[in-house]
């Protein structure tokens, strides 16, 4: 994606107002068209005179049948309209797992463990350099099994971590919403790197004694963007089943996935991935509209797997010594940029105001027909959204997107601070970021949020939510005890 913004012209103040005026004109085009019509009608009426108007009114002989018929017609048309609309999907509430302080992994602990497990000087130095530049803070957490030397990557420990993170998040959610477990109709769980049999969805059904006719699905291996894939599936199910709710769980289980080898491309995930989980309650019941926080407007999925480089850029494999790990390729950022571009191409027309779309279209036509040297116009997404939740995959991802979408530091603050406080919690990171924005008291009714997730495959998925009620500063959430310390200034390099 080209990095240079729209030509220097926009730096001129006068032209900035022209641009504003143009945007206002195009976006309210229909209203502007109606004005002359209304003026003409009122002129005609005024010319007629008040007596003539009264005479005209009395001459309308409306008998009962006609009135009734018109009313009936109006009601019928309104009913048809309402029935044929797709069912709205409301986000009633959500809860994020707050790791206990006993699971904290400050940099010193991480490096010491890396040294004691690996005994390889070069690997430890490499991981230290990564940590220095990672944008992570000292309060990120790893599961209890990873605190052992050597770590215990057993199935039992993995299940224990799953139970800890998932059940805590669900308990919080049940408390917040007052939902009874027996009333859950749909359950979708996504966890990429841990998939036991019976599934994590069966584990949840067992713990909370959910109904036997529940529609449960367990997605696995789908990467960091799987949270939005689960929302997509839940949305489709809610379109089909009236008056239902759906519980979506997004998590990543770290315990079985610690890489114990020395290949550099595989050491990165060790440094970045941390414990986390989110539980989200969706509903299509109209009565939930009153207490719901958000409504889902759009969800767009883009899969770049057809391109070999994109497919291989996040790849689980064995190194030369047989240790399994996830290798991240060097052109990850380029691929992420391309995936985002594809996703934007689909979501742009759905969310951008007419003014931006027209400008983009005109510039495109101009480049093709008039002069191909014109710089491509990058639509201003800040006009379509008030808040952005960019997957906290790593500092480089957030930098890249900030550049590509021309966002300010405040727009990406939620992502950077989530990366600092919680690390890369994979598919649940988007929810920690949303929680940050709410805790800062920035979420108001009518605001639109854009959640963008990237993940192995290579996929780029995005969801657009609209806030339905101003969210009061959270009483209980993962940011409760530390929100006042944020935002923090994260230096480019933290010397260790």
């Amino acid at each position: 994606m080209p990095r240079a913004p729209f030509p220097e012209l926009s730096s001129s103040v006068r032209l900035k107002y022209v641009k504003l005026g143009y945007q206002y004109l195009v976006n309210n085009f229909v209203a502007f068209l109606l004005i002359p019509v209304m003026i003409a009608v009122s002129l005609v009426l005024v010319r007629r005179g008040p007596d003539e108007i009264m005479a005209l009114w009395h001459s309308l002989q409306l008998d009962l049948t006609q009135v009734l018929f018109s009313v009936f017609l109006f009601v019928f048309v309104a009913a048809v309209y309402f029935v044929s609309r797709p069912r709205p999907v409301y986000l009633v509430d959500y809860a994020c797992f707050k790791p206990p302080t006993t699971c904290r992994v400050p940099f010193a602990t991480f490096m010491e463990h890396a040294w004691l497990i690996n005994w390889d000087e070069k690997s430890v130095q490499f991981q230290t350099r990564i940590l220095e530049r990672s944008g992570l803070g000292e309060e990120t957490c790893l599961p209890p099994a990873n605190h052992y030397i050597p770590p215990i990557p057993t199935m039992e420990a993995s299940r224990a971590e799953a139970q800890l993170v998932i059940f805590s998040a669900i308990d919080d959610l049940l408390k917040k919403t007052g939902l009874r477990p027996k009333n859950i109709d749909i359950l979708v769980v996504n966890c990429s790197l841990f998939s036991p049999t019976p599934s994590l969805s069966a584990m949840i059904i067992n713990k909370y004694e959910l109904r036997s006719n529940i529609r449960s699905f367990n997605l696995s291996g789908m990467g960091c963007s799987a949270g939005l894939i689960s929302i997509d599936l839940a949305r489709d199910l809610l379109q089909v089943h009236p008056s239902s709710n759906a519980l979506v769980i997004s998590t990543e289980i770290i315990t079985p996935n610690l890489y114990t080898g020395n290949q550099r491309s595989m050491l990165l995930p060790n440094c970045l991935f941390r414990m986390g989980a989110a539980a989200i309650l969706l509903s299509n019941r109209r009565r939930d509209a009153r207490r719901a926080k958000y409504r889902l407007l759009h969800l767009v999925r883009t899969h770049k797997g057809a391109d070999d480089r994109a497919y291989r850029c996040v790849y689980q494999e064995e190194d030369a010594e047989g240790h399994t790990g996830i290798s991240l390729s060097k052109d990850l950022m380029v691929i992420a940029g391309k995936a985002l571009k594809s996703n934007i191409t689909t979501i742009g027309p759905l969310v951008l105001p007419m003014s931006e779309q027209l400008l983009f279209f005109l510039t495109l036509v101009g480049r093709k027909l008039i002069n191909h040297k014109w710089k491509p116009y990058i639509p201003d997404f800040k006009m379509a959204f008030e808040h952005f939740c960019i997957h906290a995959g790593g500092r480089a991802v957030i930098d890249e997107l900030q550049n590509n979408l021309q966002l300010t530091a405040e727009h990406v603050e939620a992502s950077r601070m989530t990366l600092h406080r919680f690390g890369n919690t994979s598919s649940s990171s988007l929810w920690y970021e949303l929680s940050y924005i709410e805790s800062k008291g920035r979420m108001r009714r009518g605001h639109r949020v854009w959640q963008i997730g990237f993940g192995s495959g290579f996929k780029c998925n995005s969801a657009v939510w609209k806030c339905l009620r101003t969210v009061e500063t959270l009483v209980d959430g993962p940011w409760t005890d530390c929100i006042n310390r944020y935002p923090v200034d994260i230096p480019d390099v933290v010397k260790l």
Partner: protein
Amino acid sequence: MELLWMIATVLFLYSSLSFLWKAFDCRRNQNCYLLDYVCYKPSDDRKLSTELCSDVIKRNKRLSMPDYKFLLKVVVNSGISEETYGPRSIIEGREESPTLDDCDDEVDDCMYSTLDKLFHRTGISPGDVDVLVVNISMFAPAPSLTSTIVNRYKMREDVKTFNLSGMGCSASPIAIDLVNNVFETRKRTLAVVITSESIAPNWYCGTDKSMMLGNCLFRSGGCSFMLTNDPSLKHRAKMRLKCLVRAHSGANDDAYSCAMQKEDTDGRVGFHLSKSLPKVAVRAFTENLQTLAPKVLPVGELALYVIRGLRHRLRRSKETKAYAGKAVRVNFKSGVEHFCLHTGGAAVIDAVGSALGLNKYDVEPARMTLHRWGNTSASSLWYVLGYMEAKKRLRRKDRVLMLSFGAGFKCNSCLWEVLRDLEDGGAWEDCIQAYPPQSLVNPFMNKFGWVSEA
């Protein structure tokens, strides 16, 4: 005034017509058609004979003689023939330490060979696929298997992929349920589902008996099938989905832990099958049937069942000893012609068959599938269907019931209606003439029969 009337009438007609059209259109797109399915047939060098099984078992030096005898007894009496298939890593002696490449190769071979055939037979290009679902319970690498398929077949960017995992042997109906739900939200959609199981990374090398059964019974297999809700493809479709019922008894602790992947006391991962499995299965099965029966059976049979039930209760209250323990049976054959039962094992097939009131002819496809292919987990239903089709049993308007059980504990079922006379040999083509065989007894009974005596 007339103008007003005219406008009102036009508006009314337009809205009522568009409403009716929408309702009709919805109905048209609500059907889920099975266009075709292809069952996986591995190459012959992967056949697992009883002799080979015995060698593999002997390689595990931790086993004592009683363990060895127990395992061999299971294999010999399992109803599984010499023609079933296993993964290369086990045949080549790497069962205790399979590499990631071994696991990938096993799954890739199944997926690619069945998908190549499926696209070739249907004449549909991979670029036309809108929804892709893969369900393989015990292997979920990153990137997911759905991404691997998208990469291999260069599918579109907006393809909706879902990678289901951990959902056990009954995952086929779950995948169909997912696709069916997506179908109801979109028109003219094409979906491809791949269902299989991964054996290579899940070979148990310990000494816990409850975990060794899996080693004896699970075999390599898989199936790819194509579904659509496009009415214009109806004439090419084989079957239409009529209803689908899922029952999850995971709320009960026994049910949840009766089939579970976990570590044994020595820390080795295996698939534990507990002694309470039959009881749990019966409970889940009953629950499923309670919802399924009213949807599947004709009204007459349901009425008869109610009457028989009342009579039974009246008699039981008068003569407690004579009628105690005798349950009232429902005749499922009044609503279903063919039964695809999950080939969990000979005992499972017999138990389910007897509960549904089936005779030898009805359970033959399942028994023969167990014999020829072993327990291929979620894809077993499709091999059973393949047997029925190869035997030319599936005629137009016949109804086929697929019934499976899986870890969780789940019992899922779906009812299909056959749309035209089906005659493809499929994976059974080269051997269907030899079925049913004279005897299902293991040919090595002479050599290994001593295990049953001791």
